[in-house]
């Protein structure tokens, strides 16, 4: 069920109303049913699959915890992780593997990966490992555990909830908090605007430029930069909506983005981009491998492997793996050159660092978006086609941008992007505009709300129905 759908507009108020009307000890049942119904819109077979995952992992957690024999405990955990990983790899890599064989002698199954499988598989693995290492107690109440895994805002594209942080929230008594709900609605509306207007409009423009065979030069280079914005708004927008929806039910999901494009190093970028995934990879891949505790060389290997896994998690195409490897290599080089890259600089040095990181990230997104390595290199090469004649290169870029950007309303998006960056800068300084806006006096606040909602509705009318980029992971 898409958040931008009539069905969701009916589903959400009904679920919200029932949740807050029923007695406290029935609320998790409501969330379980809500999650099941929400996921069923993707397909009943997927919803049944999710339920099976929940049932098996629920008993798995209890079974692991009750083992006294450490050797047996470890083997059971390994078995669970192995099976969950194999299933995930099968869905992710089946089509890719079949496509490697040129002839059609294999009976090709029509395998479609359930939406969200990558996310809830990681959540479940994280839960089982935490139970094994006794960082969390296994959840004895099936309904509580199911509500945690099947909580609908995070089900399809995260944030990847950590059992330590999120599971306890399903065990407490929730009180209806008007201010929290209004705050949640503000974040939902912000995310809605980012995803269904900005990401959508930029996506249409980028798709057009990429698909046009004659695209080369500055307009293609510009499109790579607009893709950098598109993917940020797409995923950040979804995360904002998910977090806002969580607030409606008094569940605080982990913040997933924190002004990543204002990062002064690649290391800092990864502490601000898809934070829940970075945390998961750090806790369950990087640290178990030894982290930075086993010497420099081993640290570099661990970083590389962690980002290789990140690339593989994103998809089966070699381009994702290259993208992950590039980030791993980037961080290794950064560590070699700058021992403490997490220190931030002020003034012009800080700005230069941000620009360099942005250029690097932009470069890696080319691989992320490309269909193949050849395509990626072709795009990179074509971006600089004609750069030997700079005046012509620039004039051609301006002309082509003027021609296409009006048609696709891209200029407005770029203007809005400046405001988004300013909001991100405020966020980095610790200012939450959604909270600050509550301090504005009536009636100005209400006029602001009406105009804000009107603006969102006005701009999202052009949404043409493309899905979240991160749904396919």
């Amino acid at each position: 069920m898409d958040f931008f759908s009539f069905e969701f507009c009916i589903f959400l108020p009904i679920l919200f109303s029932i949740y807050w009307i029923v007695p406290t000890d029935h609320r998790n049942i409501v969330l379980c049913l809500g999650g099941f119904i929400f996921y069923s819109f993707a397909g009943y077979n997927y919803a049944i699959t999710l339920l099976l995952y929940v049932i098996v992992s629920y008993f798995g957690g209890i079974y692991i915890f009750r083992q006294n024999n450490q050797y047996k405990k470890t083997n059971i955990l390994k078995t669970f992780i192995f099976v969950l990983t194999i299933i995930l790899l099968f869905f992710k890599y089946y089509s890719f593997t079949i496509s490697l064989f040129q002839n059609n002698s294999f009976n090709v199954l029509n395998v479609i990966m359930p939406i969200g499988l990558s996310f809830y598989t990681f959540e479940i693995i994280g839960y089982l490992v935490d139970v094994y290492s006794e960082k969390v107690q296994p959840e004895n109440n099936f309904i509580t555990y199911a509500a945690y895994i099947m909580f609908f805002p995070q089900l399809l594209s995260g944030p990847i909830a950590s059992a330590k942080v999120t599971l306890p929230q399903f065990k407490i008594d929730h009180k209806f908090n008007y201010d929290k709900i209004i705050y949640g609605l503000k974040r939902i509306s912000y995310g809605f605007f980012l995803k269904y207007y900005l990401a959508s409009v930029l996506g249409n423009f980028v798709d057009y430029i990429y698909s046009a065979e004659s695209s080369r030069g500055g307009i293609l280079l510009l499109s790579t930069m607009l893709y950098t914005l598109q993917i940020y708004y797409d995923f950040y927008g979804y995360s904002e909506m998910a977090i806002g929806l969580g607030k409606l039910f008094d569940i605080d999901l982990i913040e997933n983005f924190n002004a990543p494009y204002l990062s002064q190093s690649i290391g800092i970028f990864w502490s601000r981009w898809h934070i829940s995934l970075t945390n998961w990879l750090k806790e369950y891949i990087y640290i178990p491998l030894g982290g930075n505790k086993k010497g420099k060389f081993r640290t570099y290997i661990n970083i590389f492997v962690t980002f290789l896994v990140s690339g593989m998690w994103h998809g089966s195409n070699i381009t994702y793996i290259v993208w992950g490897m590039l980030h791993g290599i980037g961080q290794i080089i950064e560590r070699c050159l700058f021992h403490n890259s997490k220190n931030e600089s002020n003034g012009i040095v800080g700005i230069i660092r941000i620009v360099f990181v942005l250029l690097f990230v932009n470069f890696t997104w080319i691989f992320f978006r490309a269909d193949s390595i050849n395509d990626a290199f072709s795009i990179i090469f074509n971006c600089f086609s004609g750069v030997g004649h700079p005046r012509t290169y620039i004039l051609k870029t301006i002309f082509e941008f003027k021609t296409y950007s009006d048609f696709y309303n891209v200029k407005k998006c770029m203007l809005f992007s400046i405001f988004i960056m300013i909001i991100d800068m405020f966020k980095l300084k610790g200012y939450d505009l959604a909270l600050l806006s509550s301090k504005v006096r009536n009636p100005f606040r209400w006029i602001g709300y009406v105009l804000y909602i009107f603006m969102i509705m006005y701009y999202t009318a052009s949404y043409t129905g493309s899905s979240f980029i991160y749904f396919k992971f």
Partner: protein
Amino acid sequence: MKKLIIKITFLISIYLVLSIIFFTVVSAQYNTAYDAAVLDKIDRLESTESPKIILVGDSNLVFGIDSSKLQSAMNMPVVNLGLHASFGNKFNELIAKDNINKGDIVILSQIDYNDDDKLYAPKLFWYTLENHFKLWKIIGPIGLAENAITLPEYCVNALKKYINGTGNQAVTGTYARANFNEYGDIKRECHIGSNIKVSKELFSSMKISSKCINRINAFTKYCEDRGATLLISSVPILNCEYTPDDSIYDSFEKELRNKTKCEVISKWQDYLYEPEYFFDGYPHLNAEGADLRTIQLIKDLKSWENSKNE
């Protein structure tokens, strides 16, 4: 909770009041646009006596039928309700339901059988409906609610035209309300010549969704309850190097015949046309192509009539 409900109700009320004021004050500004032709089509549907032939579907019917020829051959008045695939099949069928009576033959011809039963085209929806409340009644409250979010964009643009006095200006080119004839076809002189670019992307998958089948079957029952008959006919298909195999069309047809409760009167391979018979894109035929397609449709209808009488 009470405070929240009151405030949300207040917000929604503001929008409803503003919308009512808008539609009362601002007249329709897009009456000359292509999609506004739906009003003429509905008028013709309502004013044409039964038994009649009603063509339901997308723009393949607008550009692909010579209704006067069909009318002469079948000796029944023809109403061509074909309009725009972007509205979605559900929209096209809703329009038709306005006046179906005993003896009517409803012919469904659409490009997409893999739809999800929604009203589409958020950017066109309100630009077509405007303050034509007859259309609002046909679409119904759920259809209106589904598209409520795109209302502000239409209101702003319509208001600009209203204030500047630039609404309802004559539209140049083929895609204008004035270029439809009395049957609902595009006028012959408006789709002469061929300028179609052949590519693989023109061919979508031949999938059939269960939602589409359920809707067609419900439409079949709707027609039967009124003593009318629903038939399915093919759309024009571009014959080029990218055209799918015959086997694809055979299995598509077979699936359609098995799953729908109405008759499928066409063989898809009979509607293959060379690029020179297409107008500006797929599946828009030019005038010559429309002639050929109409002749084939007449053959299919006569064949169906004969089999009915046997």
